């Protein structure tokens, strides 16, 4: 039976217990954002509309646009992996840094990437004045932020759960930090790194397409890419060209999966820690072909030739990975106190000046109250999205998961659906809404669900296919059917995977609200009341006071719900309903 892991993979949602410090760190992250905004806002780049490339909606330009989009994705992926390896390593190895870095990552994860776009565009345009590079960087950054967090959590989790005996063996052998990182730490986390990388990459298509054409302060910024192609076609009401864009997108997603991710997933199987041969291994035709070619031998030879001097050099530079047996408890405690004091002082000052900045806006601090009210409307939409998707997709996912042969074919399809940027389908939905006269206040729920529901389906399939067939046979044997079977076996068994999927879906829905609550189609502008449209409109009018307030409130909603609801469900799922 094919058993696929859930996404994010198991354990990567596990966190430290919530402590008051975490709230403090959360404030700190906002300060960082706030600092970037201030820099961006004060930069005042002169904007020449002719500077941005004009997008042609001719389908013949699509291959070029696709290539540009793809390049952005991989540049972002490179940065995401670099960031994840470094961040997780420091967080796992440094006790003091960990107390700040892990909660900070939690907050970062809940910051709406798209709401932040106006800010980053302004910032990067100032950084690379007079060139398209600023726009490119902003788009790459948006994609990066949607890829990095889950990869980081997965690597961090693999580092802190590393076997104690491996750690001891490494220290006794006297491996350098460099050598240890590449021969123990990274291989040990490789499977999680690749799996979470693949799924996050899929999710980030949405952010790529949304970040290729944005309107900041009344100015349109466009980058050549599939996303901007489709958006321009939508604005001009050319549904036929939109279809071409969709086809290109599907081809691109499939190609990247076949040529890049599948081979990687099959390759990292060798890093599985269980020292037994597993019967069901992911396979890849491309990897098999590669393996039969002479490239691996050549590459291996080159790698070995380079590795020796590099290892020597970096080994000497990073030193031997060891822990001193001598500890000074008093000195350590004093340093802890000093560290805490510095963190508190910086946060306190920053928090004060951030609130002062928001208060300096037209509405003063009252804007926070307004944003909270609108946030509640968006919250209701997110809740409906998760509830309705669950009712529809849990039974379907269970059915697929219980039929290994169906699952084998359908799971990759679902993965493509989850990767597919839902904003490409928006115009078709809008046409429908206009036709039947449905307000976007309700219609936006459907738009939000278009992209996020698949995470529930995907994870439920994964959960259901992991249910041992013995358990189902036992239920058959005892003639437990219908309601009773669902209540006693099926729902509890898929619960952990479902919770993982629902957390991801809810997070995605919040993010999607920014593009789903305000839509422009063929000169119609449809707006829904909510936090998403609040942030979008603030972005369009370049009101940084409102942008900051909007992002702050949305992150408070997301982290609050995580702490109050999802974290609890997740720990129940892990302790009571885990099958392993």
């Amino acid at each position, binding site marked *: 039976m094919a058993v696929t892991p859930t996404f994010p993979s198991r354990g990567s949602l596990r966190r430290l217990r919530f402590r008051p410090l975490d709230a403090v760190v959360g404030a700190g992250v906002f300060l960082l954002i706030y600092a970037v905004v201030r820099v961006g806002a004060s930069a005042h780049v002169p904007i020449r509309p002719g500077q941005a490339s004009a997008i042609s909606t001719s389908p013949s330009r699509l291959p070029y646009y696709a290539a540009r989009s793809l390049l952005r994705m991989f540049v972002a992926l490179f940065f995401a992996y670099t960031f994840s390896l470094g961040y997780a390593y420091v967080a796992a190895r440094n006790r003091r840094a960990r107390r700040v870095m892990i909660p900070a990552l939690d907050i970062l994860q809940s910051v709406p990437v798209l709401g932040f776009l106006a800010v980053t565009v302004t910032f990067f345009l100032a950084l690379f004045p007079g060139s398209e590079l600023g726009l490119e960087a902003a788009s790459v950054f948006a994609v990066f932020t949607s890829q990095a967090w889950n990869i980081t959590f997965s690597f961090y989790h693999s580092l802190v759960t590393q076997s104690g*005996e491996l750690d001891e063996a490494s220290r006794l052998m006297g491996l350098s930090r460099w050598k240890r990182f590449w021969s123990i730490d990274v291989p040990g986390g490789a499977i999680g790194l690749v799996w979470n990388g693949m799924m996050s990459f899929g999710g980030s298509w949405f952010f790529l397409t949304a970040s290729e054409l944005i309107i900041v302060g009344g100015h349109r910024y466009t980058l050549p890419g599939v996303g901007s192609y489709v958006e321009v076609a939508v604005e001009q009401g050319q549904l036929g060209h939109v279809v071409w864009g969709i086809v290109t997108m599907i081809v691109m997603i499939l190609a990247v999966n076949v040529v890049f991710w599948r081979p990687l997933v099959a390759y990292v199987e*060798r890093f599985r820690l269980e020292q*037994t041969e597993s019967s069901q291994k992911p396979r890849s035709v491309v990897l098999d072909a590669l393996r039969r070619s002479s490239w691996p031998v050549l590459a291996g030879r080159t790698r070995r030739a380079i590795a020796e001097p590099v290892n020597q050099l970096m080994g000497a530079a990073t030193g031997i990975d060891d822990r001193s047996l001598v500890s000074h408890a008093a000195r350590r405690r004093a340093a802890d106190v000093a560290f805490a004091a510095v963190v508190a002082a910086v946060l306190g000052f920053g928090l004060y000046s951030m609130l002062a900045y928001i208060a300096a806006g037209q509405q003063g601090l009252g804007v926070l109250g307004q944003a909270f009210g609108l946030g509640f409307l968006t919250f209701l939409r997110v809740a409906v999205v998760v509830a309705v998707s669950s009712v529809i997709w849990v039974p379907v996912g269970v059915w697929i998961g219980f039929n290994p042969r169906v699952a084998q074919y359908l799971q990759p399809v679902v993965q493509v659906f989850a990767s597919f940027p839902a904003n490409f389908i928006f115009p078709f939905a809008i046409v429908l809404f206009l036709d039947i006269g449905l307000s976007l206040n309700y219609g936006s729920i459907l738009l939000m669900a278009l992209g996020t529901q698949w995470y529930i389906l995907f994870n439920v399939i994964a959960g259901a296919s992991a249910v041992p067939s013995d358990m189902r046979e036992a239920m058959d044997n005892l003639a437990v059917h219908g309601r009773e079977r669902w209540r006693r076996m099926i729902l509890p068994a898929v619960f952990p995977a479902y919770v993982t999927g629902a957390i991801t879906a809810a997070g995605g829905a919040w993010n999607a609200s920014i593009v789903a609550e305000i839509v422009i189609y063929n000169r119609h502008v449809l707006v829904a009341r909510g936090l998403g449209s609040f942030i979008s409109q603030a972005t369009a009018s370049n009101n940084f006071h409102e942008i900051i307030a909007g992002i702050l409130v949305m992150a408070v909603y997301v982290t609050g719900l995580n702490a109050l609801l999802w974290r609890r469900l997740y720990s129940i799922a892990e302790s009571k309903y885990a099958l392993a």
Partner: protein
Amino acid sequence: MNGPLISVQALGKSFSSADGHPVPVLDDITLDVDEGEFVALLGRSGSGKSTLLRCIAGLIAPSEGEVLFRGQRLAGTNRDTTMVFQTFALLPWLTVQQNVEIGLEARRVAPAQRTERALRAIDLVGLDGYESAYPKELSGGMRQRVGFARALVVEPAALLMDEPFSALDVLTSENLRGELLELWEGQRFPTKTMVMVTHNIEEAVLLADRILVLGTNPGRIRADMRNPLARPRRRRTQGFEELVDRIYRMMTQRDSAPATAPARPGAGSGGTLGDSPLPQATVDGVSGLAEVLLGRHDGAADLPDLADNLGLEVDDLLPLVDALVLLGFAGLRGERLTLSHHGKIFAGASIQDSKEIFARAALDHAPLVRTIYRALRGSLDGNLPAGFFTDILRTHAGEDEAARQLDVAVNWGRYAELYAYDAARGQIIREEHGIGATLADRPEPARRGTLHLYLGAAPGSGKTFTMLRDGRALRDHGEDVVVGFAQARDRPRTAEAIRGLEIVPACPRGDGPRRRAGPQARCSPRR
């Protein structure tokens, strides 16, 4: 070479539990290992033997005392030693040869020489031909051979082994032991000094020149003996079996001492939470052992024989023995375990009957089971959080031990139908039906709280003495008497009166036993 290779001096190690309460694992260990010695550290689980090995390797820092290697105090990992691990600790993504070479690479050995030495080591352990295999393709025994090759290839001054054979099946481990000995005796590798941690007595007697037996909770050196047997050693010889039996007695002796005291009749005579901790034994294990004994002649057997026949290690067998003795189902004399009258009835009874016999025995002799049962009977809604009992236990044992004790008590009490446990809510629940409820109908001995006042004019008038004397008398009648913070203050008569009473000294949390002047100053109960 002057002086010992490894010198452990007055080493103590305690780990702190979640609430900062220190739990001692090793206490006052002093030990010298000379160059060329083969030393076995033998002990039950909880004796801290692996911790001691890791202190010698410089992997963890001792809380007290120090470890010297060639006269130098260790400040970090001791890279003149290598270790063979119980679970092998190989890197599954490297081939056998790469696994063996990685330590040489860290020591900056040139690539050509590295390969040559690795191949020689692989050849030495008999894995010639498997150089390019991955660990997951190998059997357990072969993996451990890679573990040995990896440790020996760097030619360490001392080879440390942490239960190297215990993850292997019987035949494989026997084979590997023989080969290790052959290599060592034949001087096939330059490393002469070996320190091995094991809980297998025969393994220690078979391999080591010197055997150190560690006691439990906290680990102290109980015996340090030379192995008088000449090599090659054979299992079925008289000398061998005598030595194994002697060590067996040494290892069983003190741990079951409190429980072997003749049980007094009547309820509540067992002991207290502090002095009769529950052994880590399941009900299935206890009744299984009782049935095995019943099948024996006279319902008695020698422990070494029993372990041998059942294929059990000391670690597995002793908790079961402790449980039988604690419950009054068997008596232990030397190494001979004899089923008592009650034990025979228990072993031969039907499921329902044996449950009831077990319930009575647990209430009489297992203080924790009794405490939980009574507390539930006395509670208003018949519900108590498990944390309530772990809090009580924590004053007697560490955090982990408290949790383990409660697990056993829950297991026993559930089987005996004395109470139920709701794991999701962490609540222990009164049984309203079944044995637990029937037993409660029995009139209990009167144990109302009586307040006695002892008045005296001046210090030294004998108030304390009289109070403690009465306390002892009450205790001998089966009452639970605990005296909080009593001091003899150098008065011999008071000191005499305290004897036999459990004293729980006031112990500030997280502070620990700051001064270890005498046993009275510690935070664990003393009698």
